[in-house]
């Protein structure tokens, strides 16, 4: 079976700095993969490259065999890539429901009429915001804002979901809820690339991890082996690391 998401030789340079250096890995359909690495190692930049917020300096990024490298973010969104942001981004002037309606209307499926509301509401319910649809997002708690961002990504009905530290900043019980929610998503066959610092979550969710250090791929394999890899341990030394 061919890979759903395939990165080959992907690099991004900012002036002098090489933030992502010849990254290369595949993700199969339905797989959930952890993307690890110390702060500043280029994880968010890689998410930005895949989702089209930035265009790579070189390399190819294929979805279902189609190269999307250098395409605009909206084209990539319509090709089936959805994401959340490391710092939550909600649409402040629109209700919770309207937030979730946007990708339903403009994503790959480009739904029309009442179908937009149906899709939006389905995904709000899925993340537990069904009864808060008419609130303004500013009135939501932090975790609910994160849930809203996830619902918005899901309402695009994506092939690949990119989560950038979606579980960060949650308290222990919220964290358990969050992990359960992502597990549930994966059980529906969604393909997920998950940037995460919380090792408990990585162990619970990701059978496989790729690790970056200073923009370069240093490990790719089963989570247990990767976390025991001396290069990975060395990369994390000196970085605050909550294993």
């Amino acid at each position, binding site marked *: 079976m061919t890979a759903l998401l395939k990165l080959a030789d992907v690099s991004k340079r900012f002036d002098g700095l090489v933030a992502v250096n010849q990254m290369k890995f595949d993700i199969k359909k339905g797989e959930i993969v952890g993307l690890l690495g110390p702060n500043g190692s280029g994880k968010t930049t890689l998410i930005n490259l895949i989702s089209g917020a930035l265009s790579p300096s070189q390399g190819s990024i294929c979805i279902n065999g189609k190269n999307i490298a250098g395409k605009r973010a*909206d084209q990539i969104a319509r090709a089936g890539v959805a994401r959340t942001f490391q710092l939550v981004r909600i649409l402040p002037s629109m209700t919770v429901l309207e937030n979730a309606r946007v990708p339903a209307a*403009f994503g790959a499926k480009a739904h029309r009429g009442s179908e937009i509301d149906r899709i939006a509401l389905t995904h709000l319910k899925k993340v537990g915001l069904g009864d808060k649809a008419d609130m303004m997002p500013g009135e939501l708690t932090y975790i609910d804002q994160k849930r809203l961002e996830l619902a918005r990504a899901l309402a695009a009905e994506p092939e690949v979901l990119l989560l950038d530290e979606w579980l960060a900043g949650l308290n222990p019980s919220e964290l358990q809820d969050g992990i359960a929610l992502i597990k549930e998503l994966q059980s529906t066959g969604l393909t997920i690339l998950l940037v995460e610092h919380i090792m408990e979550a990585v162990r619970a969710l990701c059978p496989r991890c790729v690790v970056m250090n200073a923009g370069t791929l240093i490990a790719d394999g089963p989570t247990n082996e990767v976390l025991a890899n001396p290069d990975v341990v060395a990369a994390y030394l000196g970085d605050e690391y909550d294993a």
Partner: protein
Amino acid sequence: MTRTVLFAIAILAGLAILALAPAFLGEYGLGFMVSLMSYVTLATAWAMFSGPTRYISLATVAFFGIGAYTVAVFNETLPYPFVLIVAISIGALLATFVGFATLRLAGVYFVIFSFGLAELVRQLITWFEVNITGTLGRYIFLPFETRHIYWQLLALAAVTIGIGFWIRQTRLGLALKVIGDDELVAAHSGIALARTKVLLFVLSASLMTLAGAIQSPRWVYIEPAIVFNPTISFLTVIMALLGGATRLWGPALGVIPLMILFEWLSASFPDHFSIFLGAMFILIVFLLPKGVLSAVETRLARLKREANA
């Protein structure tokens, strides 16, 4: 349902009353109403693009002037409706080019470019007339009295507000609202930013062009310096921002007090008029970019919250 019907009746009644204005007003009053309708159109059209995108455009008079000048060039050779179509086409074409070329410019660069555009168009036309046609200054001979111009502009203003209302009900309106909130989220949700913005810019510019075309017979004699007067661009921005560029009726509401104020200022202090204008522009753009109405609302909401607490 009944609310919509009542609203529609109120709008029609308002339009009917406005349409009767020429029966009650003298030449001066009607002239004032012509300017009023022209600015309601310009400010509403300006806000259609600049409200959600937050680009401060000073290109208004580029399009307004093109409309007026097109009428001056073709009024003797083409039937009036065709002249209007030619004018809209030129305005829309220019807006398409300018849109795709400049909408990636950020903030103040766009302001400067849009201001420069109006000057550029004026200089090009002047150069062309002086060196190629040898006719700087043209006459408009159309059988319109002030009231005919007024009725056309009233209709254009109504159509412009109607388009603004309609956009809000469509996918385009939703896309614009998202762009206004967060462009990055808009793009990652599948909204084509450049195409959406250029579409709006062209629509807005076409309405501005039409406003210039319809108003032009008021001048009879037209030169580039008259119809490409930058004051028109500045006034439009101030009016739209005063009322609030993200609201449907905001720009129209901003026009009325400012028209009265500027009428008085230009009569009482003709030499200092442009200083007032500049000061006001800076004040509103920097201090109240969301409009006076919304600033008052925010203040009131805060007072209410403090009273409740």
